């Protein structure tokens, strides 16, 4: 992996996550001509969420490609470009539109390094705005991370704040492995301080974003702010909740969660994706194996139901909320 930005000191600037992602791509493109952007409407329009706004003007249409409308074509040609030595960053317009490229991602992108026994590296990033709570129609609110995490050869990550969005996307672009980069679209306008000069610590590591004693609450991406709010609410009731931002979904930082659980004795995991077959189940299983005798209660999961992502009119009932997290915390403490 090449070094993540160790360039000249730049002032810390407050910006929304969308702008931080834009800055990460812009800085990466400025440093390396091999970095290309590809996707539907990402050039002239700047992307449907404007995450790539201004980059076509800055770097030209050869490096910021408004592609034809075909996800398999986008990911498939990105693989060919990477074989040629480029570092393509593809945008899939919405989570529910990634499936036409599923074959290219899971059967090709993920496996070619292994198939060539290391001869061919594929530094391809697939950016996907994901998750719900934006009041949209079908296929615009899904959380497909478990499908990708289940595929060996892919890294999967999701930032929860502007600084992580910047450093994690820089790390994803610099990685010689393919990365599924899940952007929590309901947090695109969440502002935070971004230091573009930092040399990033590995974001394969989870981060304790709130220290606590009684229960560990693990989350990633869009639900980290909800988990922090749940922690605030619990404090008012005298409970001390430790919040872990997993950041990397594959690989998962089991060590960090284990260390936290050895301290608190309790774990609640939350994600928007359906609970069944999800990341929470994996985390529950590994933590139970690793520190069974440190656990005071079974690991509990707060996730989506086993149903298609529902219509916007009822998504509030579907999505993990502060109350549902608190309910799980109470259940855990009741053991």
């Amino acid at each position, binding site marked *: 992996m090449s070094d993540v930005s160790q360039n000249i000191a730049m002032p810390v600037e407050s910006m929304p996550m969308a702008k931080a992602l834009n800055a990460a791509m812009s800085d990466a493109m400025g440093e390396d001509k091999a970095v290309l952007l590809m996707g539907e409407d990402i050039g002239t329009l700047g992307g449907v969420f404007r995450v790539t706004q201004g980059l076509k003007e800055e770097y030209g249409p050869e490096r910021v490609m408004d592609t034809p409308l075909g996800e398999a*074509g986008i*990911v498939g040609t990105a*693989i060919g470009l990477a*074989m040629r030595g480029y570092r393509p960053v593809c945008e899939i317009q919405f989570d529910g539109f990634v499936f036409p490229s599923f074959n290219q991602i899971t*059967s090709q992108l993920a496996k070619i*390094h*292994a*198939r060539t026994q290391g001869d061919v590296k594929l530094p391809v990033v697939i950016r996907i705005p994901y998750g719900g709570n934006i009041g949209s129609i079908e296929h615009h609110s899904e959380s497909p991370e478990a499908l990708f995490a289940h595929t060996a050869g892919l890294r999967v990550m999701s930032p929860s704040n502007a600084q992580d969005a910047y450093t994690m996307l820089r790390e994803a672009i610099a990685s010689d492995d393919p990365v599924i980069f899940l952007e929590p679209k309901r947090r695109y306008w969440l502002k935070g301080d971004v230091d573009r000069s930092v040399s990033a610590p590995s974001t394969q590591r989870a981060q304790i974003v709130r220290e606590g004693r009684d229960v560990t609450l693990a989350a990633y991406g869009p639900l980290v702010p909800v988990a922090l709010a749940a922690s605030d609410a619990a404090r008012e009731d005298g409970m001390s909740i430790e919040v872990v931002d997993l950041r990397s979904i594959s690989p998962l930082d089991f060590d960090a969660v284990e260390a936290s659980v050895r301290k608190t004795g309790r774990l609640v995991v939350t994600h928007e994706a359906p609970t069944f077959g999800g990341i929470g189940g994996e985390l529950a299983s590994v933590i139970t194996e690793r520190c069974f005798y440190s656990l005071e209660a079974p690991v509990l999961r707060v996730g989506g139901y086993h149903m298609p992502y529902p219509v916007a009119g009822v998504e509030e009932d579907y999505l993990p909320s502060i109350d549902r997290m608190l309910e799980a915390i109470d259940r855990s403490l009741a053991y």
Partner: protein
Amino acid sequence: METAETPHPGATEGRLNRVTILDENGHRGSDPDFDPYIEHVTLDDLKSSYATMLTVRRFDDEATSLQRQGKLALWVPSKGQEAAQVGSARAIPKNDYIFPSYREHALAYERGVDLRDMMRVFRGYAPGGWDPREHRFNLYSFVLASQIPHAVGYAMGQKLDRQLGIGQEEHSDDAEAGGSEATVVYFGDGASTEGEAHESMVFAASYDAPVLFFVQNNKWAISVPFSTQSRLPLAERAAGYGFEGIRVDGNDLLGVQAVTAYAMDKIHRGEGPVLIEAETYRLGAHTTADDPTKYRTRDEEDEWTTKDPLVRLEKHLRLEGVGDDFFEEANQRAKEYGAEIREAVLAMEAPTLDGVFDHVYAEENSLVEEERAWFHEYEAGFEDAETQEGGR
């Protein structure tokens, strides 16, 4: 039983004629459009092409019997498609990059891939077998059509290199054809139906990618006849994407060589993409797991056996005065090659799971390392048990 040519009511007519240079009796005809592209081909060149075709035919037969004897997990016979592969290979500049499907054994041989390495794939000992960059010949791709967008992306990169002025010295071994490079992708009539084939052609057309789509239409997608894949010859589809399509008799080595040379010339001038459909026939089974007698007629197979590309080229060579000595020697060398392949397969060293752990990711990955450590511990448990038993 259906044949490959079941008619469709209401179907429109195609507009393209099929190019043939060597007819079924081995007589060389003329084609003013394409003759200039094979003017330089000498009788020695043709003899060399024949020797390659025969060698790969022998290799293919040997691989089929190795599979029958349980030494290969699977085999994918190329029998019948040698002219399409050798003819095109000889017209593609060495510096150009090729993406095969999985039946392109003669093409691999022409590109210098050691076919013993290829056998590691079919023995179940390696997922790839060769370094694609060394031969500018990608690995086989077993999900139909998945390699087509890769080829288009690679070609987009070849063009982008020139536009951005990067990567020239890294990628270009020589300055042949003005330093330009192109890509060729092979697929079949079955794969032509996949969505990725369509998206690839749209992308190639939109980005003026220097790529040749080379379709070997061998008439059968396992048991499904060509008429179920397409009403018209596949070359007709190129017009819909806005680039040139060419139909050629795929069992005619010289015809294939001529149209491929023409297409590569055009693509190197920046006027691609081009689609060539080589009409041929799979004389063998789809794979060794298949039984063609269940879906195609004996009459059809017999008819195509008389159109065997090796027979046609032999007829031509004999008409040109090539005698028995050459054919006997070529046969002898092909037999020796087959024996070498057998020997290599039987001597292959089995792989280890560690070798798989090594390459799941390019960078260190905590999950892989954790599982690898567990696997080593588990394996070591057996070793300890063996040591203890031995000591008893």
